[in-house]
């Protein structure tokens, strides 16, 4: 699967993933090829159990495939150690999760500062404040996650994802835990920021409506990606 324009930023070469199950090996996918170009927005649709989360994990370097390669900005992630992949993730990737995954002991501001500090950035606080301003939470920097609503938590997570100005943003069912209205507002925010920052967006969802907002929609069926 290749796009028509721009340079490749995230690519898989003959990606394969096999799980060892109690009744023998389970082949989730094999020889899966995907090429995503800079600035593109891509949705990956799939029924639950189709392996779309596994694919996202492989694209993010959170997991290692049993076959093939994943290239992020030209670097073969399968050839790196876990720590090297972590550093690469911190530099090149942003994440938005269904369960928000904010750290409960840190304030909104500190949560947004975290990836910058992990990467050793010096002006973390100013940048985090700016990012929170962008998602409309400039007034709630000192709040802890449990003091924020679901929508607000996801906005903090979006600020955290964009604050490092990553090349690629990976989102896993970003509105799955939110009510319909809030979900819409979060979608708007996500695409708006993506537009502003010119980030490449890869979105995994089972929501066709959300998928349609992307330039390219792919469906994971029987271990292969097909255009939807």
């Amino acid at each position, binding site marked *: 699967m290749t796009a028509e324009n721009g340079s490749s930023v995230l690519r898989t070469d003959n990606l394969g993933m096999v799980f060892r199950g109690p009744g023998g090996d389970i082949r989730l996918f094999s020889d899966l090829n995907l090429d995503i170009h800079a600035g593109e927005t891509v949705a990956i649709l799939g029924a639950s159990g189709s392996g779309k989360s596994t694919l996202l*994990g492989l694209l*993010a370097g959170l997991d290692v495939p049993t076959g093939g390669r994943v290239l992020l900005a030209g670097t073969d992630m399968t050839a790196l150690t876990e720590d090297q992949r972590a550093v690469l993730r911190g*530099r090149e990737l942003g994440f938005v999760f269904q369960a928000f995954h904010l*750290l409960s002991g*840190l304030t909104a501001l500190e949560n947004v500062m975290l990836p910058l500090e992990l990467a050793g950035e010096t002006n973390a606080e100013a940048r985090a404040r700016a990012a929170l301003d962008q998602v409309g939470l400039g007034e709630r920097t000192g709040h802890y996650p449990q003091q924020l609503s679901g929508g607000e938590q996801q906005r903090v997570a979006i600020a955290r994802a964009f604050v490092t100005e990553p090349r690629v943003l990976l989102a896993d069912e970003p509105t799955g835990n939110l009510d319909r209205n809030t979900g819409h507002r979060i979608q708007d925010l996500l695409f708006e920021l993506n537009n502003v920052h010119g980030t490449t967006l890869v979105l995994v969802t089972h929501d066709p409506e959300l998928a349609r907002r992307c330039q390219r929609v792919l469906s994971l069926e029987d271990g292969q990606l097909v255009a939807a």
Partner: protein
Amino acid sequence: MNSLRYGFRLLLRDWRAGELRLLAIALVLAVTAITAVAWLADRVTLATEDRAAELLGADRALVGNDPLPDRFASLARDLDLAVARTLQFPSVVLTEERTQLAAVRAVDPAYPLRGSLQVADHADGDARNTTETPARGEVWAEARMLIQLDIDVGDRIELGAEEFVVSRVLMLEPSLGGGFQNLAPRLLMHLDDVPATGLVQEASRVTYRLLVAGDNAAVNQWQARVQPDLGESVSLETPGEGQPAVEQVLDAAKRFLGLSALLTVVVGGVAMLLTIRHYASRHLDRVAVMRCLGATERQIGAMLTWKMVLLGLITAVLGSLLGYLVHLFMLSLLADLLPSLPAASWRPAGVGLLAAQVILLGFALPTILRLRRVPPLRVLRRDLGDQLFRGWSVYPLALAAIFLLMWWQAGDVVLAIYVFAAVLGTLAVLALGAGVIILLLRRSRRAGATGLLLSGLVRRPWTNTFQIMALGLGLMALLLLSVVRQDLLATWQDRLPDDAPNYFLINIQPDEADSLQALLDEQGLETRVYPMVRARLVGINDRDVRPSDYPEPRTRRLVAREFNLSWLEELPEDNRLVAGNWWANGGQPEPQFSMEVELAERLGVDVGDELHFDAGGQRYTAQVTSLREVQWDSFNVNFFVAASPGVLDDAPATYITSFHLPRDQQRLLVRIVRDYPSVTLIDVSAILDTVRTIMAQGARVVELMALLTLFSGLVVLLAALQVTREERQFESALLRSLGGRRALIRRLALTEFLLLGGAAGLLAGGGAAVAGYVMGNLLFELEYAFNPWLPLLGAVGGALVVAAAGLLATRRLYRVSPMQLLKGAEEG
């Protein structure tokens, strides 16, 4: 990333969420126990070390049981050294109404050469330093003597043949001296007043001291010149070694307390091991997110380590503060036994700080650091990483930490190994017992209808075994120290007959022996006055005997001292021959010795060996023809070595006797002391009372340590409740949504806690009874019977304590609505 800052932030968060509380409490208790003992030991050691010279009252001292030759003093004066003489002996002080044994020290005006005396003008007056010493005709007495004699400053007392005015209260005096005299209140008098009292005669039990102080080089020169000239009867004391006996006792007490403090650490460690896994598993998600956002293993490791280090610091500060308070409480319990102590140092707080880190390093950090390996993919798949804490590999480090602490407290690797093995053995036996109880409950559950009531204990066998073991250890320590100690003491006292001698008379001069015997006979007291010769063992067969010949310290000390020898015609009633034959009665048998069997074993002497004794420069030689077993605690006069009549006839002897005097005949004592001024009266019951007080006060300190261990045991219970909290919540909610009433659920919990505490107490009581039996029969040679009430007492006590603590800790669990509970359980 600033891992210190993140560590601190996350620590705060954990604290607010209550996730760290039990871990912290277990740690604080452990540090409290360790620092309390450290502070106590530190201050007592400081008192003995820092003021060693002051305690000796000089830079060097010569000590002997005979007057010290003048040449030592003149040499010191030639070297421009200051010189003082003292004389120390026990004697009875009389008033119209009362008698009191005193440790008398007669001093010349130069005393002390180092340090100073502290006196007060009244028994409850303020202490002040003084450079004076008692004037002629005056004495200074310790406050407790004034209390015991019911007199005050200005009153008169009799000492031997003289009367004295008590002119000051003696608050602090250097050179306390060793032996039982330490226990008697001190009395200070002028050296020149001694002859008039008639208390010091030839062969009296007197310690002569020559104190020397001055320029360091001159002191060393003096020491170098007198040392070769000292002979066997004079010894040299230097600062710090003046009180070997006291130091040894203190050292042993320090080690014992230190090791008992570690019981709290062991039990606290169990609590930590229980909670830490649970605690760590709650952090899987957080660490996974950080990994996902780019954190490296090193960053995670540094952050988690900092978190633990900070936790260690905070708990150490808290624990040290509490330890300081506990040590103050201990000091108040020991107030009568200890001299005034120097101010506390900071060192024990450092010990607490270090101990907290070692404990965390051993018990928490290995588990916590496994979090570094959380797969970042957990952010997408919640089931990943749950297996991270499986396995037993964290336990060796915990054991290593405990052993390290034991080694440090014991200061001796062999002792540390013994204690380590004993504690592990006890824990293993307790765990085994707990396992058996749970197994039996499981059986009975299957058999009967009480299934639901017993279900709690049976369903969590591992956690419950842990709990029973830890609670049992705490309870066992407490029972041992309270009930078993009382039992042992009572058994020992029961062994003494009611008419056991309660008074000893020593220093009876040869010309007084017959008349004193007549006086005692006249009073209807059944007793004998025995001759006593103080002699040094100088040879066995053809070889010379030196203390250095014996590796065992106690034997060494025995050989270094003078033996008390006597001559007997008949074998005393409380002696039993175990080898050889007693000499024929009547007439003048061949010169022979009979030796006490244990001493003979120590010295390697057997029947047929020839012993050479030196008494007053004269040599006495005879063959050992029998070995005797002696019942020392009959309080009758007994001798290690007895000679056949005639052997020691020309040796310098004093006489000794013991008798039982009923309380209503005490006037006789006054008569004896007045008519025989040189005779020293020793009140055994007063000494026994003092020993009993020391034991009781010491035991209370140890009980305090055991209480800390029990608290730790309760923390284990709370830890187990925390770990099983979600499960309990869910079960409770389920039962209630199925129609179970709150009362039923409460009853289920109560039954579980009662059984848990009862099982722990039963095992603890059984363990304490067995330990008491073993200690009584093997260690103290007492016929101490197994106390069957102990397991019952333990079971009831344990059940009540655990039920109360358990219900208190879970009260909220059963109050909230099933809906809330089910929701809470889902969220975990």
